[in-house]
C-alpha cells in the first residue's frame, strides 16, 4: 500500500491542515510514553496507542487530501478546525488513563474534564480541573510522570502554535503561509523575519526551543530538580502556566525560582521576533520598540501600585518586601498570561483572591491587556490598548476640530487606518464575547465573581480567575460542567484571537454548497 498520488487526492485545505496538525502532536505523545516507561508508570502503552492514533488519523487526513482553496476564510477555518480537533482529541490520553477518575464523578464528566484540561493546555490557558496533582512531599503521586509531561507538553505545542510548526514542513503553501501564521499568531500583525514565511516559522520555532532550554537551565540553577526545571520551562516559554504541583511555583517557596520565573514569564510574554532581532541584529531593539516599552512600563507601574496598596492595607505578611514579592510575581504572571501562582496554599500571601478590590481590579485589567503581539501570551495585547488610547485621543481631537483629518499615531508612527479598523473591530468582538460569556456562564450556574474572572481569564488564556477559581483552587469546584465547556470554547476563541473561530463554519459550509447539486442543473 502506498500513499495516494497527489493528483488523485481530494482538494480539502481544512482537512489537509488538520491532518498535519494531528501528525505534529504524535512525536510529543511518543516522548511522553518514553517518560512514562522510564518512570515506571502504567500509562505508557496508553500514550503509545494515542500517538499511533494521532499519527494514523493525521497521516490519513494529510495523505488523502491536498491543499485546495486558500482564500482567507479557508485559512482561518483551517487554523480554527485544527485547533479544535487537536484540543479535543488531545484529551484522549487523559480519558484512557482515567486521569480525572474520582469517586462520585460520572464517566461523562470525566471526559468533559479531560477535554477542559486538554483545551486549557493547548490554548496555554493553564486553568485546571485536576484535584490530585502531586506535592513535593508526596512520595507516591497518583498521576504518572508521562501523563504529567504530556500535560506540560500540550502548552509547549500551543505556545508557538502547531499550525506554525506545520508551516515549517509544508513547502507548497508559498506566500499563503503568512496568512496561516497571521491567523494563528497573537497580535494584529505578524512579523516576517525571513523572506519566506516557512523560514520565519523555522526561526521562531528554533528560538522557542532555545528559549525553553535556557529557561530549564535557569530553573535548575535556581534550585529546581531537572524534572521540575524541564516541565516548568515548557509551560513558562509558552506562557501557559501548568505546573506539576498543586500549589504551582508556590510549592517551592523559593525567591530565586520566583525571580527566574518572573524574568522568563516576561520574556515569553514579549514579542519573539524582538528576541531574534536582539540576537542577530541590534542590542537596542528592546528600547526602540514602543510596545515593549509600554509592556515594561505597565509591569512596573502595576507592581508599584499593588505593592503600595498591599503595604498600606497590611494585607500580606513581610511588610513591603513581602508585598513586592507577591505583587511583582502576580503582575508578571498576569501580564504575560502565564498564570503561575506563588501562593503556598489557600489563604497565603500570593493568593490574590484575598486581596482588596483595587489590586484585584488591576489584576483584572492586566488579564484584559495581556502580553505583547507576536508573543506566546494571551489577552488583547499591549499594542491594541495603545491603539485604542490613540483612537480615543483622535476622537477628542475630531470633536474639537470636526473637519480636521487626524491620523492615529503611536509615537511618531502613523497607524494605517486598516489596522485601526481591525483593532477596533477585534476589541468590539472581544467586548461582545465577554458580555455574552458572562451571561452564558452565570446562566449555567457560575457565581458572579468567579465568572467575571473566569470569562476574561479564559478569553485571555490567563489561568487562574477570581472567587472559587483563584490561584490556589481549581475550576472543578467553581463552575458546573456545562459552564466549564463554555469557558473551554472561550479559551480557543481567545487563543485564535476570535475571528478564526467565528469564521470556522463558513468555509466548510461553502464547500458543502459547492458539492450540493444546483437547483437549475437540469
Amino acid at each position, binding site marked *: 500500500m502506498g500513499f495516494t498520488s497527489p493528483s488523485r487526492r481530494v482538494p480539502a485545505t481544512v482537512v489537509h491542515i488538520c491532518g498535519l496538525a494531528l501528525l505534529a502532536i504524535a512525536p510529543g505523545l511518543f516522548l511522553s510514553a518514553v517518560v512514562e516507561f522510564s518512570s515506571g508508570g502504567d500509562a505508557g502503552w496508553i500514550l503509545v496507542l494515542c500517538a499511533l492514533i494521532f499519527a494514523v488519523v493525521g497521516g490519513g487526513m494529510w495523505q488523502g487530501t491536498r491543499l485546495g482553496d486558500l482564500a482567507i476564510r479557508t485559512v482561518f477555518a483551517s487554523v480554527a478546525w485544527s485547533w479544535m480537533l487537536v484540543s479535543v482529541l488531545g484529551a484522549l490520553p487523559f480519558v484512557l488513563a482515567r486521569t480525572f477518575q474520582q469517586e462520585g464523578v460520572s464517566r461523562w464528566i470525566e471526559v468533559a474534564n479531560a477535554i477542559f484540561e486538554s483545551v486549557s493546555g493547548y490554548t496555554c490557558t493553564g486553568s485546571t480541573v485536576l484535584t490530585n496533582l502531586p506535592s513535593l512531599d508526596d512520595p507516591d503521586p497518583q498521576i504518572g510522570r508521562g501523563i504529567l509531561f504530556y500535560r506540560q507538553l500540550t502548552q509547549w505545542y500551543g505556545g508557538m502554535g502547531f499550525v506554525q510548526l506545520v508551516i515549517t514542513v509544508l513547502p507548497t503553501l508559498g506566500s499563503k503561509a503568512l496568512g496561516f501564521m497571521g491567523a494563528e499568531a497573537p497580535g494584529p500583525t505578524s512579523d516576517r523575519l525571513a523572506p519566506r514565511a516557512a523560514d520565519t516559522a523555522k526561526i521562531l520555532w528554533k528560538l522557542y526551543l532555545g528559549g525553553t532550554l535556557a529557561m530549564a537551565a535557569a530553573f535548575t540553577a535556581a534550585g529546581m530538580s531537572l524534572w521540575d526545571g524541564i516541565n516548568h520551562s515548557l509551560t513558562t516559554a509558552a506562557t501557559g502556566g501548568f505546573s506539576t504541583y498543586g500549589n504551582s511555583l508556590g510549592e517551592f517557596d523559593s525567591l530565586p525560582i520566583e525571580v527566574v520565573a518572573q524574568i522568563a514569564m516576561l520574556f515569553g510574554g514579549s514579542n519573539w521576533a524582538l528576541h531574534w532581532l536582539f540576537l542577530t541584529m541590534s542590542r537596542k531593539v528592546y528600547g526602540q520598540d514602543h510596545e515593549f516599552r509600554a509592556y515594561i512600563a505597565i509591569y512596573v507601574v502595576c507592581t508599584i501600585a499593588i505593592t503600595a496598596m498591599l503595604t498600606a492595607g497590611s494585607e500580606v505578611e513581610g511588610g513591603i518586601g513581602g508585598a513586592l514579592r507577591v505583587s511583582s510575581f502576580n503582575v508578571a504572571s498576569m501580564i504575560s498570561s502565564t498564570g503561575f501562582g506563588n501562593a503556598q496554599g489557600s489563604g497565603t500571601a500570593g493568593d490574590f483572591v484575598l486581596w482588596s*478590590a483595587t489590586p484585584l481590579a488591576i489584576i483584572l485589567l492586566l488579564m484584559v491587556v495581556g502580553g505583547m503581539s507576536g508573543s506566546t501570551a494571551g489577552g488583547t495585547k499591549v499594542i491594541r490598548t495603545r491603539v485604542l488610547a490613540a483612537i480615543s485621543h483622535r*476622537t*477628542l481631537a475630531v470633536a474639537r*476640530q470636526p473637519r*480636521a483629518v487626524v491620523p492615529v499615531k503611536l509615537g511618531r508612527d502613523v497607524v494605517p487606518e486598516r489596522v485601526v479598523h481591525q483593532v477596533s473591530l477585534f476589541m468590539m468582538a472581544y*467586548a461582545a464575547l465577554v458580555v455574552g460569556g458572562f451571561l452564558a456562564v452565570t446562566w449555567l450556574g457560575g457565581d458572579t465573581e468567579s465568572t467575571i474572572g473566569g470569562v476574561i481569564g479564559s478569553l485571555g488564556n490567563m489561568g487562574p480567575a477570581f472567587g472559587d477559581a483563584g490561584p490556589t483552587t481549581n475550576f472543578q469546584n467553581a463552575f458546573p460542567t456545562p459552564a466549564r465547556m463554555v469557558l473551554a470554547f472561550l479559551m480557543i476563541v481567545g487563543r485564535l484571537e476570535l475571528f478564526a473561530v467565528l469564521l470556522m463554519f463558513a468555509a466548510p459550509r461553502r464547500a458543502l454548497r459547492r458539492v450540493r447539486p444546483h437547483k437549475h442543473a437540469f
Partner: protein
Amino acid sequence: MAIDTRASPSSTGVSGTTEVLPLPFGIGLGVGGICVTMSAAVGLLGDGDNFGEARVAELILGFTTILIGFAVSRAQGDRPITRAAAMSMFVISWVAMNLVAIAAFWLSGELASPLDAVFEAVSASTTTGFTTVAEPESLSYSLRFLRVIMPWATGLGVLLVSMGVLPAAVAGAELLPERRIRGQRKLVTSFGIAVRNILGLYLVLTLSLATGYLLAGMNVFDGITYALSTASTGGMANHADSIGHFDSAAIEWIASAGMVAAGGNLLVVWWAIRGRIDSVWRSTELRLYASLLAIGFCVVFFSSDLSASDSAVAISSALSTTGLRSANWAESSAFVHAMILVAGGVGAMSGSVGSGFRQARVARIALEVRRSLEQLLSPHRESIIRIDGVAVKEKSLALTYGYLWMHAFTLAAVAVLLYSRDLDIIATLSFALNSVSNVGYYVDGSELRSHVDQSGWTQLVAAMGMLLGRLSIYPVLLTISGVGRWFSRLRPRRSIGVS
C-alpha cells in the same frame, strides 16, 4: 446665539472664554437658584417651623443666584460659537448649577460634611441616585425636593442639548440617526420650537406619572417627588427602600412604565403622538430597547423569586439607568445580577434623559461587527451600514468606536481609582459601572445599595465617574483641555532677544 458648525482653531473648547463663559454660567446659576428657591418654598410649606433658618438661607441663596445668573448671562457676546464650545457651555452651566446646589445642601446643616454635600449634589444633578444619606425619610422636605428637582432640571437640559443643540454638532450627528429619515418631520426645526416641544413632552410625562402615583396611593409630596425622580431617571428616593417602601404592585407597574418611557427616545414618542406608527416600528434602536426589556424581564422573572412587578422595576430601572428599587434582586442568582449589570451598562436610548452607553451605539457596533465578518468572508465586498434605511457615515461610525473606548477607559479608571477597602471586587465593579452609567445603586454582597458611606476619595472618584458618564465624556474632556489652554495663554511668554 447661533451655533457655527465650522470650527476655527482659535475658538474651540473654552479657549475663547470671554465668548463662552458668561451665558452658560449665568444659566447654570439661574437654574440652580430656581431649584433652590422652589425647594425652600416646598420646605416652608412642608417643614413648618422646623429648619426655619435654613429655609430662609436657602431662599436668600436662591434669589441671589438667580439675580447674579441673570446679570452674568447679559455679558454674553453675540458672536457665533463653535460646536466644541457649545459642549463646553453645557458643562459650565452644569458646574454653575452644582455650585448653587452644593451651597444649599451644605447650608441646610443636614449632611455630615461638605464632601457629602458635593457628592449629593453631583449624584442628583447627574441623574444618578447614589446618596450619602442612610435614611432619606429623616431629611427635611426642602432637601428631599432639591434632590429630585435637580435631576429633573438636568434631564430637561440633557434633552434640550441632545435634541436641540447637539444634532447640529459632532456628537449629535451620531446620536440621532433617526432624524435623518427621508420624509419624516423633524422634531427639531429650530431651537425655540424644540424647547417648546421637549418641555411639553417632558411635563406631560411627569404630570402623568404624578397622577398615576397619587391614584395608586402615594401622598401628594411623594407622588410629585417620585414622578420627578422617575421622569428624569434620577432615581433619588424619599425612602431607604426606594419605591419598595410602598409595597404596592400598582406603584411598581407605574414606575416601570414611567422609567421605560423616560429611557425611550423622545423623538420616537413624538412620532407615536403624531400617529407615525410605521416610523416607530422602523426604529432599530427602539426594537433593540424593546428586545432587551423583554429578554431582561424574562430572565429576572424566571430566574428569581421576584414578582412580575418587581422584575419589571428591576429591569426597567437598570435599562433606563433610573436606579429606583422595589425589591432586593441582589439575593437572586448570578444570572440575574449579570443581566441587570449588562442592562445598566448598555443604558437607555439616545435622545432620552437616560444615560449609559446607549442603545444606538450598541446597534451600530453590532452592525459593524457583522459587516466586518461578512467582509472577511468576501474581502472584495464593499458594504455600508444602514440604520432605519439611512446610510451611516464612516466618520460617524469612527466616532462611535472612539466613544466606546473612551467609555471603557473611563470605566477602568474609575474602577481602579475608587480604592475602597470596604468593597469587594464585585461591589467595586458594580459601583464603578453604575456610577459611569448613572444607575444609582450597586450590589454589595447580597445587598442592593444606593447609600454610599465610603471614604471622601471614593466619593470624589465616583462623582467624577458620574459626571463623565452623564455628559458623555467628550464635553468634560473638551472643557478641561480648553481650560488648560486658557491657563497656558495666561502664562507670560518668554521674550525673544536681549533686553
